[in-house]
């Protein structure tokens, strides 16, 4: 078929709006550029430009005319258009989505999560390792990791992380402290080989706190091991689902141990990690209890990962309530930040850290990329949540990463393959959300988590507003986030 000859025309380019999200904070106006992830404070001239083009695309001379009519000098208007076009706030011609860069094939490892055991002394009903939605298939596999596997894992981390100054080992379970003897051995061994190789290695662990003893706390503090305690609030809320096998709640056992941990472990901040479920959504009350009554330095919240039909799943109304309470704490965070004080609501600080860098993610997290999980059997998983799952294994610690399976996992999870996300302004930060959550909900690790899109956009907007307000009123507060990332 004869195509109409394409004749290059010398017509003036027609300008229209690029992709960005507008927000306000502390009375100032800001733009979040998508997909770059850049944040700019803008003045009235930029507003005038955006409003002008909101009415429809316009060629240069008409655009200048519109801007002059809105009170700008002609020269200033021209420079404004040039600058905004270079920054892609406004664009001409056909939109060409720039492909998101894929990470290089030899992306160095940074964090290894060692599941020291898949056994646990609690029987929390919502557990993703044992509950109804579990992906793990631990039958016939070792229940406790042995030192040979742990040693091989540390060697593997050092070898696969070439070029990184500092690397991390995170201890996980099951209940991590059920294999404390191995933890001690690993710390000693890893410190020694890291030092021999001129590298820096640091450690963290997640625990339910039931097995903490003064000796363990002293060891954790002496070795600067970061501790996150899984804890869901006060006795009433915590004991709803965080129970022993006989159904008895674990709050009374852990509360004194947690106080002791916070008092005696002085080398790293101690964090609480709260799982929100249908009966446990009073975010402000939980935060007050964990932060003020118990003394945690940081408290982070996440809704339970579950298929929607579980009794403990939070319904839409529940999620709206959670978001409302997040806003209360977020406002409080901002007031603290403007005074230069730490507030401790990690859901805000984690997002601010990413906003400070201006991340534009190809993948929602480092799973399968800079982070891998290793199960007690030595199986490699994309992260700790997939450990012991035959379906998701990415190789074995003795034979290394199965590059084909890894490539498949990463290709599924890449933002380019999530078409639903391509028109969303929050995608530079979200990138479709947790692989594991997607698998539990949709049966595919690469499926975008469409059930919480509105939630993510609202929360990202809230954090942007906080970021903007802090940047306008107390910019020094944001320096800690620049350093936080640089340290890794």
């Amino acid at each position, binding site marked *: 078929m*004869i*195509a109409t000859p394409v004749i290059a025309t010398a017509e003036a380019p027609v300008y229209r709006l690029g992709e960005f999200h507008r927000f306000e904070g502390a009375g100032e106006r800001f733009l979040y550029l998508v997909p770059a992830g850049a944040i700019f404070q803008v*003045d009235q*001239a930029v507003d005038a430009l955006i409003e002008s083009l909101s009415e429809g695309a316009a060629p240069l001379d008409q655009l200048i005319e519109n801007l002059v009519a809105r009170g700008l000098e002609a020269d200033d208007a021209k420079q404004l258009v040039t600058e905004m076009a270079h920054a892609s706030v406004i664009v001409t011609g056909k939109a060409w989505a720039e492909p998101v860069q894929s990470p290089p094939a030899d992306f160095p490892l940074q964090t290894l999560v060692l599941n020291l055991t898949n056994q646990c002394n609690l029987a929390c009903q919502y557990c993703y390792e044992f509950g109804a939605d579990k992906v793990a298939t631990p039958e016939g596999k070792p229940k406790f990791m042995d030192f040979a596997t742990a040693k091989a894992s540390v060697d593997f981390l050092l070898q696969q992380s070439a070029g990184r100054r500092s690397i991390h080992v995170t201890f996980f379970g099951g209940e991590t402290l059920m294999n404390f003897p191995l933890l001690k051995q690993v710390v000693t061994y890893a410190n020694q080989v890291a030092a021999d190789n001129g590298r820096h290695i640091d450690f963290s662990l997640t625990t339910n706190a039931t097995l903490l003893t003064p000796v363990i706390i002293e060891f954790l503090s002496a070795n600067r091991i970061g501790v996150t305690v899984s804890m869901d609030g006060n006795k009433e809320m915590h004991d709803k689902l965080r129970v022993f096998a006989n159904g008895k709640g674990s709050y009374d056992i852990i509360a004194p141990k947690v106080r002791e941990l916070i008092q005696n472990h002085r080398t790293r901040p101690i964090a609480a990690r709260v799982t929100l479920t249908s009966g446990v959504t009073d975010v402000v009350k939980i935060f007050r209890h964990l932060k003020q009554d118990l003394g945690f330095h940081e408290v982070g919240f996440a809704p339970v990962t579950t298929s929607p039909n579980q009794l403990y799943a939070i319904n839409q109304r529940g999620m709206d309530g959670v978001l409302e309470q997040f806003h209360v704490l977020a406002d409080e965070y901002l007031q603290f930040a403007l005074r230069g004080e730490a507030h401790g609501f990690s859901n805000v600080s984690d997002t601010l850290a990413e906003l400070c*860098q201006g*991340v534009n993610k190809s993948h929602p997290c480092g799973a399968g990329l800079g982070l891998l999980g290793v199960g007690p059997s030595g199986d490699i998983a994309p992260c700790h949540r997939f450990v012991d799952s035959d379906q998701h294994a990415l190789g074995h610690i003795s034979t290394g990463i199965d590059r084909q399976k890894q490539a498949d996992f990463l290709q599924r999870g890449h933002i380019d393959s999530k078409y639903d996300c391509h028109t969303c302004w929050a995608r530079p930060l979200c990138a479709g959300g947790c692989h594991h959550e997607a698998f539990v909900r949709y049966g595919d690790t690469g499926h975008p988590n469409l059930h919480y899109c509105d939630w993510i956009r609202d929360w990202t907007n809230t954090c942007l507003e906080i970021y903007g307000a802090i940047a306008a009123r107390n910019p020094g507060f944001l320096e800690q986030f620049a350093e936080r990332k640089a340290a890794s």
Partner: protein
Amino acid sequence: MRHMRPLNKKAARIDNYVVSRTTEDDVVALQSPPAPARPHVPMACSLMFTPGWEVDAAGGTAGLCQPVERDIYDCFVSCYWPAQVPDHLNNAPDWTSKCASATKDWRNLDLVFP
């Protein structure tokens, strides 16, 4: 930039870029603006207004503006390059002598044995 203040690291990089692009306009020697993005059109012996092996709106070849057999002559007559059909210039000047109308007589186009 005059009207936007960068507030994070990515914004600072964009700011540097824009400032460098908008303040160095006085240096023009050997510089040309980057070509605007265009659709990828494969340009080779098949010119963009020559029909390739395409189909018509119904998915067949009957409704094309020119017969598909017309393509044979693009490679036969005008091109010296050893292509999928014999060349007219050097090796097979008489290849189409039994083919008065390509649409009807294309079956007469035979293999050529050098």
